[in-house]
């Protein structure tokens, strides 16, 4: 007995970790060695970046007369992002209820989750190219639809997860006073989850601004078109103006949206006595 007690505990086996690291190193090594890059091209990167930066901001500088056109296109991108988010929000709310195990049945929620995963697998640009530009034609409407459908995937998943984390008390209370199924959802579930879900919508809007800024590259409206044209015709002075507009507009939207989100979540914490999900849930997709 005493001998056993005095023996030093064995360090935990690092075998599995080492195997995992080795596998990861092999995969990375394969990618690095087989990819089609000339070594010389890597050495040219700093020079190329300096050249482009010079053409954009140092030579003729950003072309300020182009500012009006760039702002107009960015505003269109913001509208695209907003409508896409609204479409995603409206459609994902009921879908989220069906995707939550505690509200719908196990089978239905699994089917809905599978469907949401499938939607999320398609990037907005792919949705725009393969479905919405053929239907709605080139232009901002196709972009808004692509963003909207893609947003259903993420928003539906997050909504379902929030609903699964609710306090069952209010649901039981609503049922006990005779609430019908729809009334239970409306008065027992919705008030508990709405602040967080609205915060998700705003967060998604921030992400969608970025998506809408690039959809123009494939002809789906917004500033992406202006930018890709400027670069295609080597008008780097105009590209610089457009990029400045994208960066400033995005940071402005982020700031406003972030403030509103914080206000919504903190308001929710003040009202609910039980613990509210931490805002870190706003970080997307941590299973």
């Amino acid at each position, binding site marked *: 007995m005493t001998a056993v007690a005095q023996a030093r505990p064995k360090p935990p086996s690092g075998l599995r970790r080492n195997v995992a690291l080795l596998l990861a190193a092999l*995969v*990375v090594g394969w*990618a*690095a060695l087989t*990819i*089609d*890059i000339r070594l010389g*091209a890597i050495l*040219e*990167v700093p020079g*190329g*970046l300096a050249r*482009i930066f010079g053409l954009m901001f140092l030579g003729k500088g950003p072309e300020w007369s182009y500012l009006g056109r760039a702002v107009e296109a960015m505003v*269109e991108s*913001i*509208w*695209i992002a*907003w*409508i896409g988010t*609204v479409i995603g929000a409206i459609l994902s709310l009921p879908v989220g209820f069906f995707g939550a195990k505690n509200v719908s049945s196990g089978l239905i929620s699994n089917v809905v989750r599978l469907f949401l*995963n*499938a939607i999320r*697998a*398609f*990037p907005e*640009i*792919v949705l725009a*190219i*393969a*479905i919405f530009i*053929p*239907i*709605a034609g080139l*232009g*901002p*409407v196709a972009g*808004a639809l692509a963003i909207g459908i893609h947003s259903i995937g993420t928003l539906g998943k997050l909504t379902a997860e929030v609903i699964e984390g609710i306090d069952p008390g209010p649901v039981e209370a609503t049922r006990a006073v005779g609430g019908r199924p729809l009334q239970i959802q409306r008065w027992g579930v919705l008030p508990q989850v709405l602040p967080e879900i609205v915060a998700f919508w705003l967060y998604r809007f921030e992400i969608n601004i970025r*998506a809408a*800024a*690039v959809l123009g*590259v*494939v002809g789906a409206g917004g500033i*992406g078109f202006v*930018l*890709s044209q400027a*670069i295609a015709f080597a008008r*780097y002075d105009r590209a610089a103006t457009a*990029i400045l507009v*994208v*960066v400033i507009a*995005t*940071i402005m939207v*982020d700031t406003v949206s972030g403030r*509103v989100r914080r*206000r919504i979540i903190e*308001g929710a914490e003040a009202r609910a006595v039980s613990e509210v999900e931490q805002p*870190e849930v706003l*970080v997307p997709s*941590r*299973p």
Partner: protein
Amino acid sequence: MTAAAPARTSRPVKPRRSMAIPIGLAVFVVITWLALSEQFGIGFDLVALIEDIARGRGILAELLSPNWSFVPRTAEPMIETVQIAILGAVIGCSIALPVSFLASRVTARNRGVLGVTRTVLSVVRAIPDILWALLFVAAVGIGVLPGILALVFFNIGVVVKLLSETIDGVDSGPIEAARASGANGFQSVRWAVLPQVLPNYVAYSLYAFELNIRASTVLGVVGAGGIGNMLFTQYRFFNWSNVSVIVIELFVLVILIELVSIQLRRRLV
């Protein structure tokens, strides 16, 4: 006791209704109306859209009959897409680790450093992946290299944001202990902060890798390598049944990578 009795029977005062919700709703309605309208916004017309669905039926039918003989030609760009995602993730996440410590209040003691790092990062994050790709294609020419560079910046944006927020929330006990036993700034980060956030870092990196797979599929649209280039070409020549094949392959690839990544993340965290 007697003084408290009447207070107990009186009705509790109803809290005043907050104006935040009606104001928020009004703002929502106005913005949505502006965005939908023809003259200010994008001119979203549901009726026209439904008519368009009828018009697009031919294309949709072609999309639903994928041309499977096209599959072999997609193999090479598909592999290239995965390679771009892997290399972009590895390089980007490696750079993101040290930068995260400069972007957290806990580990960046110097306010100036913190401010500069955060400002630069918010600019990096404000530029979407494809715009990075456009810029790098302009700088170094078309190919996989601009794709990888674009993803590197994209990853730095994502991982530093997530990780620096995690670092902000670490337990300060180990840091105090390290300092008390004489550790300098670097040592306390290495032995008191890093072990706390390492599992999160790995999880965020895997998450970033998933995003990379999605992003690298479309980088080719602007000439930054991978399957996106082929997708865009087929789309421009209206080869819908080939577009369909690529989209299906992308779907399978993204789902597969996600399944693997989720399994790994579960084991790690």
